[in-house]
């Protein structure tokens, strides 16, 4: 296939509602202008990025004010090395108490996050997993517009995924570069870190944060962002928050995420032209965990909203609690875990035989039991198989760690020290 043709698969025609909403915006503008003559210099209207635009870099919420207190109940302790047995969803996970005196305050809200993905190495000396695609991002947003915002990123060294993997890595001669299979191509990761890079695209005004609620998905009705005051006006009741956070999935989002992987391409192209034909559905437990993680990481939620949201998550069917877990930085935590999903990797994209097969994984949010802060969102192996046949249940397949974050009065600067 011609390379330009191949690119056209990246996007399809817009849905009729997209066309209509963009036209409505233009019409409104044209009506406003109808009295006034066209001016020579156009007014430049700065629109802050919509909420979802932030998610790649994720503003963090940590330094959390909500205090999570563990209770007994049906929370399941994680067996050593295991992903934890499915437990109850009777709300016994957390008794979250908001402490008004811990209300976050400060001039800047910052977040320091680490992202990584595990890949298999299979030398003759024995298989092991490494964490590659390893990066750290540091971002702040001022509470006031004048305090601005900033963004930095750096690559982190690839590293063995666990102590056991480190032993196998040493047996393989402690290599410093790793050729991995990534979806449909080979890629090489190394043990080198890069320096922090100041991204000028991250500099802008302060005072605006990604917003919570279904509106943030809408191009026209949108609260595209929220102010600190906007967050303060959010409901604190778990049921009300669940309604905001777990809307019905419509359009493409209503497709079964796993089914989409098996759908013939002709069918996919057809649906791309007419996403309105896909019946709406409820979010899966996994999607709810992801949505909750995004909100908890990306938004400076007031303590009572935050604790309400945590209660809402814990109350969802298909979400259960696992005690005595550790996040990838080794911090102790309590996890909210979505029911596992089973995945099958085929040879469709030229995937080598050893990377094919079936396994189950689960999405987790790990919280600090003492402060209620979100420590990590991670994807964990539930049932080994296929590419991960050599790994144990509980092995982390990918992670998004909140290294630190919260409100501060000091101008935020990224830390020199590497996290690992």
């Amino acid at each position, binding site marked *: *296939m011609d*390379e330009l043709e*191949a*690119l*056209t*698969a*990246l*996007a*399809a*025609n*817009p849905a009729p509602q997209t*066309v209509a*909403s*963009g*036209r409505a915006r*233009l*019409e409104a503008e*044209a009506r406003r202008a*109808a009295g006034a*003559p066209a*001016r020579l210099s*156009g*007014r430049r*209207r700065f*629109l802050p*990025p919509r909420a*979802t*635009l932030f*998610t*790649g*870099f*994720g503003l963090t919420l940590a330094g959390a004010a909500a205090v999570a207190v563990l209770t007994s109940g049906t929370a399941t302790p994680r067996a050593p090395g295991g992903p934890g047995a499915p437990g109850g969803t009777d709300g016994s996970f957390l008794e979250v108490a908001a402490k008004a005196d811990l209300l976050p305050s400060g001039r800047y809200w910052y977040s320091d996050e680490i992202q990584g*993905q595990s890949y298999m190495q299979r030398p003759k000396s024995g298989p092991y997993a490494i964490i590659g695609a390893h990066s750290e991002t540091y971002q702040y947003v001022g509470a006031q517009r004048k305090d601005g915002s900033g963004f930095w990123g750096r690559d982190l060294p690839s590293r063995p995924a666990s102590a056991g993997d480190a032993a196998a890595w040493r047996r393989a001669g402690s290599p410093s570069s790793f050729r991995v299979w990534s*979806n*449909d*191509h*080979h*890629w090489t990761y190394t043990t080198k870190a890069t320096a922090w890079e100041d991204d000028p*695209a991250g500099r802008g005004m302060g005072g605006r944060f990604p917003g919570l609620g279904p509106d943030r*998905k809408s*191009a026209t009705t949108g609260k595209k962002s929220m102010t600190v005051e906007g967050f303060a006006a959010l409901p604190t009741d778990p049921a009300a928050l669940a309604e905001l956070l777990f809307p019905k999935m419509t359009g*493409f989002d209503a*497709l079964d995420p796993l089914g*989409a*992987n098996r759908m013939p391409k002709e069918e*996919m*192209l057809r649906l*791309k032209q007419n996403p309105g034909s896909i019946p709406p559905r409820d979010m899966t437990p996994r999607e709810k965990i992801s949505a909750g993680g*995004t909100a908890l*990481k990306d938004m400076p939620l007031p303590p009572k909203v935050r604790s309400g949201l945590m209660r809402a998550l814990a109350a969802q069917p298909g979400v259960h609690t696992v005690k005595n877990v550790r996040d990838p930085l080794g911090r102790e935590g309590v996890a909210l875990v979505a029911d596992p999903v089973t995945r*099958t*990797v*085929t040879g469709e*994209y030229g995937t080598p035989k050893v990377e094919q097969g079936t396994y189950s*994984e689960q999405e987790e949010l790990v919280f600090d039991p003492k402060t209620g802060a979100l420590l990590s*969102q991670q*994807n964990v192996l539930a049932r080994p198989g*296929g590419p991960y046949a050599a790994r144990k249940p509980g092995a982390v397949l*990918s992670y*998004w760690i909140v290294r630190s974050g919260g409100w501060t009065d000091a101008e935020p600067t990224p830390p020199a020290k590497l996290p690992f």
Partner: protein
Amino acid sequence: MTAPPLVDDAALVAASRDDPERFTGVYDRHFAAVRRYVAARLGPEAADDVAAETFLAAFRRRAEFDPGRGVVRAWLFGIATRLVGEHRRVEERRYRTLARLGPGRPEDGPEERVADAFDARLAQPRLAAALRTLSRKERDVLLLAAFTDLARDDIAAALGIPVGTVDSRLNRARGRLRAALSPTKGT
């Protein structure tokens, strides 16, 4: 019913100076193409906004449109490209996500979206991986060439660069992509 009068794009823009609502005609003709181009670079969600913003920006600057410097379509895609440039992080993120997303793999954490997984599967993750290795200027030329019917000199006009530069950037970008898509070579 009589056929609507044949009015070319430039005349429509000129008419909209005095009659602002005429500009919706420009929108009706070109929105789908602009939105498709922006969606390829920023993903469907951001594209809804940025494509709509493109027409608002063009509308506000309609008095500045100069037919001597190129066709309306080139002007619109030039504006869209500048707006895309303001979302560089989103674009990087999109290619990174598409490059990592794949059939049966754990998605790239919290921002996973079915729409992206869909795009990744249709477009092949290695294509997105190759796009990441291009400079933004190369991507501007490449994606305009892939998503519009603009001729080389229209692309040059849209980006405000010489035609020769369009050619050299396009050649280099296409070469990179071809290499990435070749079944014998990994990236």
